[in-house]
């Protein structure tokens, strides 16, 4: 049994991950809300003595996959393309950097983006990440590798575009 307090303590982490995953404040909080509701209705199934964080990330992964799937069915579009709409209107230097990062993240396919963020942002271990997403560790490593390379290319592209603008 998991107490409400134990779940509540994880809300900031869930929100951070959801924000990076969707790059949209409202979509992120919708994801967190659905995750919390599902977690509460299943808290009796939580293994005593377990770590609530991977458990909650697992629930969030399932909710995310379902959302992406139904969004894809509605719009028959590719995962990650229009699911993500950078919401930031901030035009300060930091705001622009954040938007570049969000846009670059959006170019990383959803399944690789999840791995990239669970490890690089949330600092889950490789084994925990494998359990959360329900895939072998070897697959985690190959998605991590592909995801990082995609993000690298996307960020390099963003810098090129930015410098072109400066020249013009």
């Amino acid at each position, binding site marked *: 049994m998991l107490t409400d307090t134990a779940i509540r303590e994880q809300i*900031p982490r869930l*929100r951070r991950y959801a924000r990076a995953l969707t790059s949209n404040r409202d979509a992120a909080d919708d994801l967190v809300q659905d995750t919390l509701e599902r977690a509460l*209705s299943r808290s009796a199934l939580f293994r005593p003595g377990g770590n609530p964080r991977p458990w909650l990330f697992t629930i969030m992964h399932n909710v995310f996959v379902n959302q992406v799937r139904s969004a894809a069915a509605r719009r028959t579009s590719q995962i990650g393309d229009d699911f993500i709409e950078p919401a930031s209107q901030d035009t300060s230097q930091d705001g622009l950097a954040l938007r570049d990062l969000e846009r670059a993240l959006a170019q990383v396919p959803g399944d690789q983006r999840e791995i990239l963020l669970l490890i690089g942002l949330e600092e889950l271990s490789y084994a925990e990440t494998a359990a959360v997403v329900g895939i072998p560790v070897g697959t985690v490593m190959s998605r991590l590798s592909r995801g990082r390379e995609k993000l690298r290319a996307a960020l390099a592209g963003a810098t090129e575009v930015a410098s072109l603008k400066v020249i013009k």
Partner: protein
Amino acid sequence: MSMAPITEETLHAYVDDRLSPSERADVEQYLVQHPQHAERVADYERQRRMLQEAFGPVLEESIPTRLKMRPPRSPMMAWRVAAVITWIAVGAILGWGVRDRQAPPDTSAAYEQDLVERARLAHVIYTAENRRAVEVAATHEDEMIRWLSKRMNAAVRVPDLTEFGFQAMGGRLLPGTDGPACQIMYQNADGKRLTIYLSRDPGKVRPVRFSDQELVHVVFWSDGTLAFAVSAEIDREALARIAATIAQGSPG
């Protein structure tokens, strides 16, 4: 030199700081000799820093009111589950009573018996299949739901039974008594299968009842649009809980 080979995975473990000091030293030496990898690794390290810096502030944000947890939802759900289980128990007792008195078969009882037999037969036949257990796999759940709903001319749902360890495998269309019927199949980690048989039953609301047979138990009811018959080789109480969850999502 007893240096372990440096693989792609080692480089990522280096970026994520998951290596021992001696392994780190090996990687650092390797990177000095391979500048193209060194550049890549530096980029990955920068990615990590950017992610931390960009999204770290979310941790400090105040939590929106809608995410402040409202507990009433779960006790209410628990009550509903309890209520449905009681309902099933009462239905089962009534069912037994009727059976003892050898009630004369009316059209309703004949319909129910037919429903149960069709559901049980479909369960036995298709759960024995391995490669062709379903027509449409649950990996295309939306497509499957659209297809079945259209053929059944009613909103077909695929209830989430993961809390009982059952994952949806897919569904198939079957001939029913009165037009098409369909079957949705689930499987748990032990390979045990459960099926939900749906048949159109407009205008009828039938209470939840059990039909026990040596192996395959069936629990059935109608919600005013569809008749449901859930079959599995699991104990009665477990089946009752699953039926309660499925019935919760029904409109009736």
